[in-house]
């Protein structure tokens, strides 16, 4: 079952790596081991496997830099998503030491270097290859809550005005970058993938509480579903995972409250 393959690639970097002390101006470096959960059906069959890579890193390096080093210098077949590399695009959410994080926002020096760093694809979404998951179930729920402005009446001739307070009401939920870290950290979502998930509720919240939007009733109706907000068990995994620091559990609570006010 567990075949252990050991292969040593010649290192392009310094041989020892660890704390190479030296002359003035030399940047201290350290070795980190990444333990990556890989899945490559076309070359390795239908089973996932763990592979460890040890690379030399610097104090300012993020996990994404280490992944780049592996992909560019050691094993080009390692597959992961990234685009902006600066926490804006939401491409590189993954499970790092068991927690959903953006690889481009996690500094290696903040992770325990004594143990290998566990890097896994997001949980609860089908894995396509290595760290790349199929985001479709996530985006399907996002589409269902109609993430666009819905208005009634006549088209105004100038822009739709809004006071600073009205804008503040939903400011927090405008920050979402659709990385899926929240939804794929939720055990209720893991069960069968039918729960709408925190991200869909966050993005519904962004419009429900927008004074310019008239679609609140429709969106509340959509989320008042067996698989909607009522499946939330208030465990805060989503709030803990969100790289934008959105108070997700609070947003879900506000949507629940709006539904209760509407029903009674």
């Amino acid at each position, binding site marked *: 079952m567990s075949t252990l393959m050991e292969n040593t690639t010649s290192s392009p970097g310094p041989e020892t790596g660890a704390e190479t002390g030296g002359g003035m101006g030399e940047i201290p470096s350290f070795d980190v081991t990444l333990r990556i959960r890989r899945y490559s059906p076309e070359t390795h069959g239908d089973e996932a496997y763990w592979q460890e890579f040890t690379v030399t890193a610097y104090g300012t390096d993020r996990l994404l830099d280490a992944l780049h080093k592996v992909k560019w210098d050691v094993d080009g077949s390692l597959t992961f998503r990234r685009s902006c590399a600066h926490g804006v695009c939401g491409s590189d959410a993954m499970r790092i030491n068991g927690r959903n994080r953006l690889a481009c926002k996690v500094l290696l020096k903040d992770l325990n270097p004594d143990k290998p760093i566990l890097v896994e694809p997001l949980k609860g979404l089908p894995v396509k290859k290595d760290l790349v998951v199929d985001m479709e179930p996530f985006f399907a729920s996002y589409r269902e809550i109609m993430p666009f402005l819905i208005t009634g009446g006549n088209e105004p001739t100038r822009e739709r005005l809004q006071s600073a307070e009205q804008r503040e009401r939903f400011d927090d939920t405008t920050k979402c970058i659709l990385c899926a870290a929240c939804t794929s950290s939720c055990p209720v979502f893991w069960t069968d993938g039918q729960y709408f998930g925190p991200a869909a509720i966050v993005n519904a919240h962004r419009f429900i509480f927008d004074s310019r939007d008239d679609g609140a009733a429709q969106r509340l109706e959509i989320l008042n579903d067996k*698989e909607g907000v009522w*499946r939330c068990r208030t465990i805060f995994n989503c709030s803990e995972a969100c790289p934008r620091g959105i108070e997700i559990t609070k947003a879900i609570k506000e949507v629940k409250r709006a539904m209760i006010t509407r029903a009674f």
Partner: protein
Amino acid sequence: MTTTQTQAAAQLPIENPGEAYKRRKTTRGNFELYSWVFMRASGVVLLVLIFVHLFVNLVAGEGITAIDFGFVAGKWASPFWQVIDLVMLWLAMLHGTNGMRTIVNDYAERDGLRMWLKIALYTAFVVVTVLGTLVIFTFDPCPADAPANLLPSFCTA
């Protein structure tokens, strides 16, 4: 730089990689909303009922030593305690059953397993609630042909 490689637990293969994901069906309605509100409301009431129950039975008067068939019969001779215990029984059973329903939904992954667990759950609810209700209204502290040493002293009178 060294790399090692070991096998991990199997990853679910994707059945149809190109296929569009679909939510199984829309299940809108107020049921889950009312169920959510009920859990909170019944929880608050249960908090009061359970602690009154524990205090009256175990602490007040002669405390725990006073409990026997006679003590129970004495309480249920009063419609006040009959109603209190009936409400506590029904709320605890509805609350507990609804809570277990949530847990089954959250943890059982296959539809068939879910169905059987819920059938077992609802059967247990009916049996306990019906028997409990019956006992509250028909309790007899001196059942005929019971061993005399188990009965309260006033039965022999």
